[in-house]
């Protein structure tokens, strides 16, 4: 039906169907993509608009109901070039990271201020509780609303900030106006829409796939199955074991089986429903310990052991300790839940190649995986970066890339694929569930003498980055402490659960929960203050790690512990019911920076300095990805510091530039930062030598200090450098209802040097929020391989009312060899937040809590602690799994496979 609707003051007459939402009308019909689609369940608030002046989620408004009404969107906030005070305040307060949630938050905040010009913290958090943010931890959003309402009283970002200053985001303005284009916002003329048909079974044989009927649906231009993949049938970051489309066996619920491209999304969806796949269900292997039983179903013909790592240092069996503690700990499958769902646009080129624009964390490793599957040389596959709506590891693996390219090449038309929230939960890897058995021995004065750890990770159906996650978890398993005698047995297995891979912390959060919980138990047994016990054993420069690696970089572990412990505790709330108990918990975490195990990790960047109309302008060209964390702002700060220019442009990332490596492993400030710094210094030397005002371009590549693989004892120079964090949580528990509320998190971060204080605070605040989710609410609930809560209604990420203020402090001991002595900080706060919060809940309740997320049943003693039958099983075949040749190790992080 034709409706008439006024949007931002302009009248439109649009034909809509009964199932069309106002969100779809705004985005697809009117091209107003500032209103974001992140869940279509009315949970996340990213699609907030005003309908006749009333704040609504546009995804839940039937477009037909907008007939005769007036709609206002984020695009109406700014008056031309003049930003709305809230838009300006969001940029000034550092409230924007990936920016995906920002338009919805701005609309909701503007609605609040219209009703309440000077709200307090509580009123702001209540008003914004229906707007999810996964990057910021909400504190800087609350600050921004205060700043907009009061105009003063808070630090503001610096317009052209150099290294050490809170520089304003270089991509900030389009993010607050809504103009910033994420993968899901891309469009092209004559574009088709692609959809994926996924397996409803976690384990099944495909007897047949019938596509005839699907092809008869009007508008359908292609229906593709595994037979239509022209090149290599599989892809993967480390092993190419994951089928582009399943051909004979499906190994997890949600595995892609077929693709459809059609003129409209609705036509493509209808056609996908008409594809008839005849499945023969097979036994489901859903338990990671069962995977190691001899009679377990084999997920792959080469067995269920994905990787086994053994680290032996000293002699833990002969170590003499006065006190031993032993514990068993479990962590769940966590989802990154980046607000921007996976999406991309593939456009065929005249030369028979394809250009893909997508949201990813590493353009070049995507291309290495895509091109062979398309049977194209790499140079015929060009990838450019679309706006990244948060990542947290979820975009390290392939999502729509190969599928969209296949459909584009198969139809000769541009094809857009954009997952909804439910498909996003099935379309990316998750954090590995873990089981850890840990035993610490100590002297009676609290010196650790031994650690014995067995660790089991559920890798799910395919490899992804599991080998590297396991290596990390294994090498960190004894904690950031000097322990002379250590044994770690780490194993990651295949199951019929969804594949697991990278997520913020990458193996570190799982073991940090175990070793910090065990250390608290040890402190209790020794009747020693938990902070003091940690201080007595803290790593320092020169310490020897369980791998025999000598810690050569900066390691101010004592300093972060002392700094965190000195942050003032919050005042108890005055009038509390007698069923509320307060607890305080403390934890220390650490993690490697950049890639490990002999991988030749590098980043390339090009800088051009030229004269501009308003003075000199520098341009940075790099394939490094800003995932929302602020990398491009950091690179601009480095250029300003090195070249003394104000104006810096960071060009869109593209595979025509050399690889900058992955935006992961907390590595890009060091890696891309060092490359930019080096290019700038060459330019500066030339400029100073010649005194020339001519345009100068220099390209530099940075490699970090080389590492090695493990030897047979698990010894080696595995990691290049480390960062440390200490966190303290204050939690209030309703001990009758079993509800925990975090009141405050204090965090002290080893940062080397803080390039952008506001951005660094944002990393800690947002990182802690993800650790909070893991501690209390976040868990993908799986039953026999079936996922039950793949939605924002039931996968519970923290809201503005769940994340408390995070007090952040930085310890700055420069890292030798890194530009300005910087260290990556992106992952650290996530790691120690979880054990700190659980320790606080233990302190408040006295309960044994050895599993996260801590449920109300755990808090009330209605559920027994996680139990184990005994020591973790060791697989029959310890050591490296024999990987079949056909998996083809010639791609991706492959070099590290060779090193092993």
């Amino acid at each position: 039906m034709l409706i008439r609707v006024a949007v931002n003051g302009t009248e439109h007459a649009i034909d809509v169907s009964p199932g069309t939402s106002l969100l779809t009308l705004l985005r697809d019909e009117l091209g107003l993509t500032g209103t974001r689609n992140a869940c279509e369940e009315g949970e996340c608030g990213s699609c907030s608009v005003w309908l006749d002046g009333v704040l609504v989620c546009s995804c839940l408004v039937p477009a037909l109901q907008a007939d005769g009404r007036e709609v206002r969107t984020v695009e109406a906030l700014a008056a031309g070039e003049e930003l709305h005070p809230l838009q300006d305040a969001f940029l000034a307060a550092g409230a924007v990271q990936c920016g995906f949630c920002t338009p919805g938050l701005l609309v909701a905040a503007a609605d609040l201020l219209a009703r309440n010009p000077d709200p307090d913290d509580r009123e702001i958090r209540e008003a914004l509780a229906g707007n999810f943010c996964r990057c910021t931890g909400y504190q800087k959003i609350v600050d921004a609303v205060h700043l907009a309402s009061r105009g003063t009283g808070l630090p503001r970002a610096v317009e052209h900030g150099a290294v050490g200053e809170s520089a304003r985001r270089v991509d900030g303005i389009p993010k607050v106006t809504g103009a910033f284009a994420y993968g899901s916002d891309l469009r092209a003329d004559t574009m088709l829409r692609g959809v994926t048909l996924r397996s409803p079974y976690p384990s099944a044989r495909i007897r047949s796939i019938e596509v005839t009927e699907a092809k008869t649906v009007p508008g359908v231009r292609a229906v593709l199955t595994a037979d239509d993949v022209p090149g290599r049938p599989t892809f993967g970051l480390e092993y190419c074991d994951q089928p582009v489309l399943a051909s004979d066996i499906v190994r997890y619920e949600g595995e892609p089986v077929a693709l459809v491209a059609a003129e409209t999304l609705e036509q493509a969806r209808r056609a996908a429903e008409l594809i008839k796949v005849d499945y023969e269900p097979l036994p489901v292997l859903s338990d990671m310990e069962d995977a190691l039983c001899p009679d377990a179903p084999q997920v792959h013909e080469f067995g269920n052991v994905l990787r086994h790592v053994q680290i032996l240092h000293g002699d833990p069996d002969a170590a003499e300790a006065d006190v031993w503690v032993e514990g068993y700990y479990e962590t769940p499958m966590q989802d990154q839940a980046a607000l921007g769902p996976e999406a991309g646009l593939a456009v065929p080129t005249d030369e028979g190649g394809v250009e893909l624009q997508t949201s990813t964390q590493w353009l070049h490793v995507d291309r290495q995986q895509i091109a062979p599957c398309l049977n194209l040389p790499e140079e015929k596959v060009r990838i450019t970066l679309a706006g990244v709506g948060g990542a947290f590891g979820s975009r390290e693996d392939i999502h729509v890339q190969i599928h969209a390219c296949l459909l584009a090449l198969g139809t000769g038309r541009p094809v857009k694929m954009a997952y909804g929230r439910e498909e996003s939960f099935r379309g990316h890897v998750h954090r590995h569930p873990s089981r850890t058995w840990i035993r610490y021995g100590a002297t009676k004065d609290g010196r650790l003498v031994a650690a014995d750890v067995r660790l089991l990770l559920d890798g799910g159906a395919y490899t992804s980055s599991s080998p590297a996650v396991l290596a990390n978890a294994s090498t960190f398993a004894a904690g950031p402490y000097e322990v002379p005698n250590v044994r770690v047995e780490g194993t990651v297995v295949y199951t019929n659960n969804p594949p697991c891979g990278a997520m913020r912390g990458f193996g570190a959060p799982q073991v940090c929960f175990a070793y910090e919980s065990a250390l608290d138990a040890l402190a209790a047994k020794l009747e020693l203050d938990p902070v003091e016990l940690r201080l007595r054993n803290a790593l320092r420069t020169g310490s020897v790690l369980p791998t025999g690696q000598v810690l050569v970089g900066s390691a101010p572990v004592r300093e972060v512990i002392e700094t965190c412990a000195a942050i003032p505790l919050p005042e108890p709330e005055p009038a509390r019911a007698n069923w509320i108990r307060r607890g305080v918990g403390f934890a220390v975490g650490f993690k490697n920076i950049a890639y490990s195990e002999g991988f030749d990790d590098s980043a390339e960047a090009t800088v051009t300095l030229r004269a501009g109309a308003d003075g000199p302008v520098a341009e940075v060209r790099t394939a490094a990805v800003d995932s929302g964390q602020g990398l491009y702002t950091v690179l601009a700060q480095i250029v300003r510091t090195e070249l003394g220019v104000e104006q810096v442009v960071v060009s869109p990332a593209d595979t025509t530039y050399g690889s900058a490596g992955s935006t992961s492993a907390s590595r890009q400030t060091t890696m891309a930062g060092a490359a930019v710094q080096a290019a700038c210094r060459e330019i500066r030397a030339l400029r100073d030598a010649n005194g020339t005002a001519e345009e100068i371009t220099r390209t530099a590549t940075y490699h970090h200090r080389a590492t090695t693989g493990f030897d047979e004892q698990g010894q080696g120079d595995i990691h290049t450098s480390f960062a440390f964090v200490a966190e303290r949580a204050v939690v209030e528990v309703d001990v009758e209802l079993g509800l925990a509320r975090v009141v405050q998190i204090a965090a002290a971060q080893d940062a080397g040097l803080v390039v952008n204080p506001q951005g660094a605070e944002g990393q800690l605040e947002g990182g802690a929020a993800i650790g909070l989710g893991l501690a209390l609410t976040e868990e993908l609930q799986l039953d026999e391989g079936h996922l039950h809560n793949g939605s924002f209604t039931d996968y519970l990420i923290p809201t503005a009312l769940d994340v408390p203020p995070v007090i952040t402090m930085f310890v700055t001991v420069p890292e030798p060899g890194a530009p300005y002595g910087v260290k990556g900080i992106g992952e650290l706060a996530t790691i120690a937040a979880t054990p700190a919060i659980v320790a606080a809940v233990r302190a408040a309740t006295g309960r044994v809590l050895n599993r996260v997320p801590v449920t109300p049943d755990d808090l009330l003693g209605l559920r027994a602690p996680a139990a184990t039958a005994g020591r973790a099983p060791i697989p029959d075949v310890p050591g490296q799994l024999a990987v079949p040749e056909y998996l083809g190790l010639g791609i991706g992080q492959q070099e590290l496979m060779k090193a092993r």
Partner: protein
Amino acid sequence: MDVFAPRSLEEALDVRVAHPEATPVAGGTDLMVDVNAGRIRPKALLDLSHVDEIGSWGRDNGRVFLGAGVTFARIGRELTEFHSLVTAAHSVASAQIRNRATIGGNLATASPAGDGIPVLVAYEADVVAAAARTGRRRIPLGNFLRGPKSTTLAPDELIAGVEWQPVAGPGSFAKVGRRNAMVIAVASVCIQVDEERHSVRLALGSVGPTVLRARRAERFAEGADWHDPAAVAEFARLAAADARPIDDLRGTAVHRRHVVEVLARRALTQVEEARC
């Protein structure tokens, strides 16, 4: 025809008969979740948002009529003398959802976790159903709610609103969920004191196939001293025994029953304090 947008209830009821394929919609906050997920593909919509009659509330002969189309945001702002209903309205999702979601939608969806329903059950409200053929009928809420997402509304009927006789006495509503906002109730409890009868009505949400009345607890309360902690504890124990919870992905049966006991105890203690 894609959409029918009647201006009166009578007109809407005629559409309901003539075009049974048209899906009724008011705020859309439940319907559109299913539409967006592809679980429902409506052939046509019966848009109830222009029917003034169901978009208002008021009193008649002491009874309160709350139109089906009144949103939770309006309930929170306008029905301020009904404290429990206001508390329940505030606990619904987010500002964005409360601006659209209606009490009629809550009843039509008939989820045992619907936040408004325990209050209406404790108010002993009647659903006012209307049909072109049979006119209006009042259905006691207990008879209206048949099971999870199932009601006794006839196919040609629409919900015009709910009606109740206010009673003198304090009341309260409390809801428990896993996070502090945007949460579907794990369990909820609404208590309403009837001073004249020295009785309480206790409604339990999210702990059974529909919202339940805790009848044994209510009967016990009639003869009990609400000031006596032992009596309050027994009341709470009976309320928990009246719950019929299940395990699902949002919570366990054992925790739900436990929550009912705690909330029932706190509720009776609180209303007793309010009376003194």
